[in-house]
């Protein structure tokens, strides 16, 4: 609560300062409202003034030629349907000046974003011009342009450093996410695909559909089921690889183990092959008529599993990746195969730094290896690796590669209700969503699910990292 009120008061201050600047500013500050560079010209900061003028000009240009035409259609997302006429005599076709809903949406969001940034710059401009005025009145030295530039590599070096990465993030992360959020409130799907057709706003209807279990729309059912499996999977995948990595590191790093480097390298080779290669390979390895099945049936494992009821009697193979339960187990096992070497590497580093004295003390007190492991080693590792564990958990929620590469084109669901929503038992929310967009062009529902996934992940991350960042750990160790 305190945090929120702090946030609001800082926002309040921000605008208050703006008001104060404006009220107390002289004619130059006030004229900066219209001509952005004015305040700088008055304080002889000619180059700054020109830059601000150019920014203003560019913004006005952008508004007229880019923002206005797009934002004008933002409310409807376009009304002119694509039409084409072909003239068989000249063999040419003419296309009308049609609206492309997606481009309107995208461009409008970009335009709105630029406007927001401009507003921020605009307000800052007034404030800094006012500060210049104050400095002048108080007779403090005003930087010339060269000094300003130099400051960019000193006090304000962070701005210099952050500019390019920030532009990149805006372009590749923030704008796409904003578009995704907007699409969740439209009817953008296969029946409404630009450029040939238009789509439009539908309010929160898609969200309602997600949580209703009406007869035909089984999205709610599928969503619930997939969410549960996603969470189970994330927990299993995270903990199995984590514990596996620690155990493997313990075994390899044990003083009595010969050639620890060789062992480590052997395991690393397994992950050095790109993941998509190994996963596609393993998928064929365990295919219904794959090599493993041939061997198993030759050796008699298939019959044995049939006898104990793990494989249904009318199958001639073990459905490693085709039966929902088998597939889930296999996916977790294969993920162990993929993930443990990574965790082993990290655990190796952590174990090397474990405080020896504690272990020695415990040994003197007569603790056995097992007790030492659970009472000293594990708590230490958990302390160090706790945050990383949560990151892994979130990453596993979105572990697209493992699930997609192992089950795509291979796994056929036997749950009809899931099938009716184009979902499968082994799907994670991301893979389901990927198929919805990639194969069924159901962009609106994919966006809705995307938002849900994001909220889940953001919540987990926020809880851990605010704690991590808040505790002033980072400063202590510098």
């Amino acid at each position, binding site marked *: 609560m305190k945090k929120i009120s702090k946030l609001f008061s800082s926002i309040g201050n921000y605008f208050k300062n703006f008001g104060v600047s404006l009220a107390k500013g002289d004619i130059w500050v006030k004229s900066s409202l219209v001509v952005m560079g004015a305040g700088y010209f008055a304080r002889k900061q000619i180059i700054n003034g020109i830059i601000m003028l150019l920014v203003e000009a560019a913004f006005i240009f952008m508004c007229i030629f880019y923002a206005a035409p797009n934002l004008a259609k933002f409310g409807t997302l376009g009304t002119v349907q*694509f039409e084409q006429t*072909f003239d068989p*005599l000249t063999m040419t076709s003419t296309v009308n000046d049609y609206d492309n809903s997606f481009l309107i949406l995208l461009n409008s969001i970009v335009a709105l974003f630029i406007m927001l*940034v401009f507003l921020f710059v605009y307000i800052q401009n007034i404030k800094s011009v006012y500060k210049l005025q104050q400095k002048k009145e108080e007779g403090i030295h005003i930087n010339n342009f060269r000094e300003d530039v130099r400051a960019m590599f000193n006090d304000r070096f962070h701005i210099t450093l952050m500019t390019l990465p920030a532009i990149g993030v805006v372009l590749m992360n923030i704008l796409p996410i904003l578009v995704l959020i907007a699409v969740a409130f439209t009817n953008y799907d296969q029946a409404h695909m630009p450029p040939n057709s238009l789509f439009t706003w539908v309010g929160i209807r898609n969200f309602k559909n997600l949580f209703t279990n009406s007869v035909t729309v089984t999205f709610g059912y599928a969503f619930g089921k997939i969410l549960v499996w996603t969470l189970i999977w994330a927990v299993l995948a995270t903990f199995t690889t984590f514990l596996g990595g620690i155990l493997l590191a313990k075994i390899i790093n044990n003083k009595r183990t010969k050639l620890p480097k060789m062992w480590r390298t052997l395991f690393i080779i397994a992950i050095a092959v790109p993941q998509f290669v190994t996963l596609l390979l393993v998928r064929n390895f365990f295919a219904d008529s794959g090599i493993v099945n041939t061997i198993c049936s030759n050796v008699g494992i298939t019959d044995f599993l049939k006898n104990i009821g793990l494989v249904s009697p*009318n199958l001639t193979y073990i459905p490693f990746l085709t039966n929902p339960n088998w597939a889930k187990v296999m996916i977790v096992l294969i993920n162990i195969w993929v993930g443990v070497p990574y965790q082993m590497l990290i655990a190796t580093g952590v174990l090397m730094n474990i405080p020896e004295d504690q272990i020695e003390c415990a040994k003197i007190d007569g603790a056995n290896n097992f007790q030492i492991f659970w009472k000293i080693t594990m708590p230490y590792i958990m302390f160090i690796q706790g945050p990383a564990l949560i990151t892994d958990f979130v990453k596993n929620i979105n572990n697209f590669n493992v699930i997609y590469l192992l089950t795509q084109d291979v796994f056929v669901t036997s749950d009809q209700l899931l099938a009716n929503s184009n979902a499968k038992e082994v799907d994670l929310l991301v893979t389901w969503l990927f198929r919805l967009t990639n194969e069924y062009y159901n962009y609106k529902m994919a966006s809705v699910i995307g938002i849900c996934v994001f909220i889940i992940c953001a919540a987990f991350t926020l809880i851990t990292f605010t704690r991590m960042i808040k505790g002033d750990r980072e400063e202590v160790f510098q």
Partner: protein
Amino acid sequence: MKKSKKLLATLLAATMCAGSLFGCGSGDDTTTEGASGENTSSESTGDDASTGGDATSTNPEAVQNLIASTTGTVTLTVWASEEDQTLTQQLIDLFEAQYPDITFDITLGAQSESTAKDTILVDVEAAADVFAFADDQINELVAAGALQPVSATYTYDVANENVAGSIEAATVNDTLYAYPMTADNGYFMFYDASVFTEEDVQSLESMIEAAQAANKKIAMDISDGWYIYAFFQGAGLELTLNDDGLTNTCTWNAAGGTDVAQAILDLCATGVLVDMGDEDMATAIAEGTVAACVNGTWRAADAEAAWGDNYAACKLPTFNAGGTDYQMSSYSGYKLVGVNPHSDYVGWSMLLAEYLTNYDSQVLRYEQRGLGPANIEAAESDAVQADPAIAALAEQAAYATPQRVGANFWTPAETLGQILASGNPDGTDLQTLLDTAVEGITAPVEE
């Protein structure tokens, strides 16, 4: 908060430059779209001619007009399947040679016909100008505006020189949308003649007996909507596409539906008819475990290699459901060539599409790739007639229907097949099973 915002300002300026780029970019797009890059002579906008639908007369004058009005390089992209690259390149070269006055820059890309729509629908504007695709995708492509209607032909009479089925497959709502290229994309039965007699292959039941005796299996991809359709359609139950071009009408759960489902269950329960994916079939044939397959020409080649002289093909057999013998139906399949209406050179694209599908090209395609022609004359040649796979397809054609299905069919049908092929492990009431499947198949696309 010092007066430090200059850099932010430059940042912003940069963002805005990028922004104005966006603006110009999209503006340009629409204008080139409008002018269609196809030069000036479009003042004679013959309205009546363009609405003429199937103006099938060949028109050499128009081609002359087009040549006259073309200046500069004609840049086109063509997509053909990986296997067809060499042949297509050869045809493109021949096409270019036909118009020596025009500078062409034709790029050939690889895109398998079966998945063409996956790439095209993501961004129609970025798709190739001329592309090959399997006829099952035509509805979705038409709905997405990815196909230029064949409103006029110039070098040969597309609608009358190709077999009627292929024209039907390329037609949506009475408009012809594509150029038939091959007529062999459907499925049929091919078998090892040392295991089955010609008598055996008349019905699935007798085939199963024969296979059982020889300890072999019969493979069919039952857990796939494309194949399981053969049973239900064969028994007279319907699956059709609605007028909206996206949703389905399905009567698989009507009277007799449970008999068909029970029949599939029983057939699979013998352990002889096995549910097997296409890729697995290739290996299973090579291994010798499978002696008969329901599949298409693409897999028949593997069988021919494995079985040699014993390789034989025929129409699909009958199957018994509820005491009645039904002839299995199938989807007839055609490969078509389409023209992208967003092409900058629609005219040239249409000419190229015609060229890729004319008589000579189809003959060449058969000779080099063994693909069954859709062209009537080409299909009647002795060589084609002697091909067992193509003969089998022709035989099956009487019971085949063109594929007209909305996207919601596939997953529910696949799951239905999976459940039946695995012996209905949950013991769900068959009627309920079918009801749920039909519910999914007929589900509306838009709430």
